[in-house]
């Protein structure tokens, strides 16, 4: 049964997922190619000095991609469930409802995480050819908050999709907008290091909202 639940989620999301993977590959490739050109013409020293003396991590063009991936994936997964109230079919399956929602969310989180990890891996490997590992870590730790934004948009957009009333959807959307604004507020490298764990916790608490939306759906709340 678990396998079939994941199969259903795959059927819904395969094309958006592959599309987002292609977009992330293209942007990452473009960004790293630009850096490669800089290295070719001016040497790797320029990367070192930029990273050490300037408030940049060289790959800022990629920062919104994980958030976009999270949003696209959650809409691809949960909007079909709410269209014509298909969630009734899902909740009617002879499978514990709480576990069903958890499995669906885990699938999405895993997909977003996989995209993020692959991108981080490629960035780490390529940058590692030009700069020392300490600076690679600096880049990736700075990027961690962007990947967290991917989780945030995934969970909160899923909660917005599962919420049956527009009024509450707007409330959730405003909260998500605030959260995303906070996650991208500072562009200073490693600015979020100290309170990243709390941000992770806050983002993951968004998973509770999925259950809240389903509970409201089951009560029959509507506009």
């Amino acid at each position, binding site marked *: 049964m678990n396998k*079939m639940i994941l199969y259903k989620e795959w059927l819904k999301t395969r094309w958006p997922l592959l599309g987002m993977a292609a977009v992330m590959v293209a942007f990452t490739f473009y960004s790293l190619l630009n850096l490669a050109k800089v290295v070719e013409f001016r040497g790797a020293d320029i990367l070192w000095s930029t990273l050490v003396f300037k408030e940049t991590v060289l790959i800022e063009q990629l920062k919104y991609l994980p958030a976009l991936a999270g949003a696209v994936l959650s809409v691809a997964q949960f909007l079909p469930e709410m269209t014509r109230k298909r969630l009734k*079919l899902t909740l009617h399956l*002879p499978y514990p409802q709480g576990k069903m929602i958890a499995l669906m969310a885990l699938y999405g989180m895993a997909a977003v995480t996989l995209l993020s990890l692959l991108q981080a891996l490629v960035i780490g490997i390529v940058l590692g050819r030009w700069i020392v590992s300490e600076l690679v870590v600096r880049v990736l730790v700075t990027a961690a908050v962007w990947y967290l934004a991917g989780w945030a948009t995934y969970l909160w957009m899923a909660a917005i999709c599962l919420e049956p009333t527009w009024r509450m959807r707007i409330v959730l959307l405003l909260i998500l907008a605030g959260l995303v604004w906070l996650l991208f507020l500072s562009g200073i490298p490693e600015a979020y290091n100290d309170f990243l764990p709390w941000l992770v916790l806050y983002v993951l608490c968004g998973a509770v909202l999925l259950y809240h939306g389903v509970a409201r759906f089951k009560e029959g709340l509507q506009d």
Partner: protein
Amino acid sequence: MEPVITCEHLTHWFGARKIYEDLNFQVQSGHIVGLLGKNGTGKTTTINILMGYLKPTSGSCRIFGEEVQRISPSTRERIALLLEGHVQYSYMSIDQIEKFYSAFYPKWNRDAYYGLMEKLKVAPGQKISRMSNGQRSQVALGLILAQNADLLVLDDFSLGLDPGYRRLFCEYLRDYAKAEGKTVFLTSHIIQDLEKLVDEVIVMDYGSILVQEDAASLMARYPGLTLEDIFIELTGKY
């Protein structure tokens, strides 16, 4: 034997609008019960309450002895549900949806499903979203029959179907239910379909149940009238 469905003192309001008050009815095992009523009398509301998708203002319903808001997965396995409009996972093909559902129902009858699908004349990989209303209804019917459930709950099963598909649906459903001793609880706005299908009718009006009676004895009380005529007689023309 305990009734399959029991609703007691069911009351529901949508805001300031009362749907019904102190509704009581039971559905016995092996019966095909039709819930009739004009638009807005609470037929779909009743289905939603029974399936746990709507919390009533007060009152309770039980299916197979379980409170409907907390039906266990093992009991849900015994209930086949058809949503209004034959809503299904339309991004799946007929093969994909059979593969999906069969994993959840140990008594899955593959032949019952594909027996109907052979009549569809669609490509195996064709998405349900690209099928006509009638074809989608056949897929929905096939899935219901294949589940081999003890109780079938169908909300407005004839919605959007032409007479040919409606007849196919009714014939299949009745033959299947009677042969297998299944209990069926259904709503339809096309009364003439129900005449040959149901054993028992519940006629709702705004706020209450007008009649809950064996279909044959109801029709015997109104000789010469069809079920549709009796319905209009009971509920008024408009």
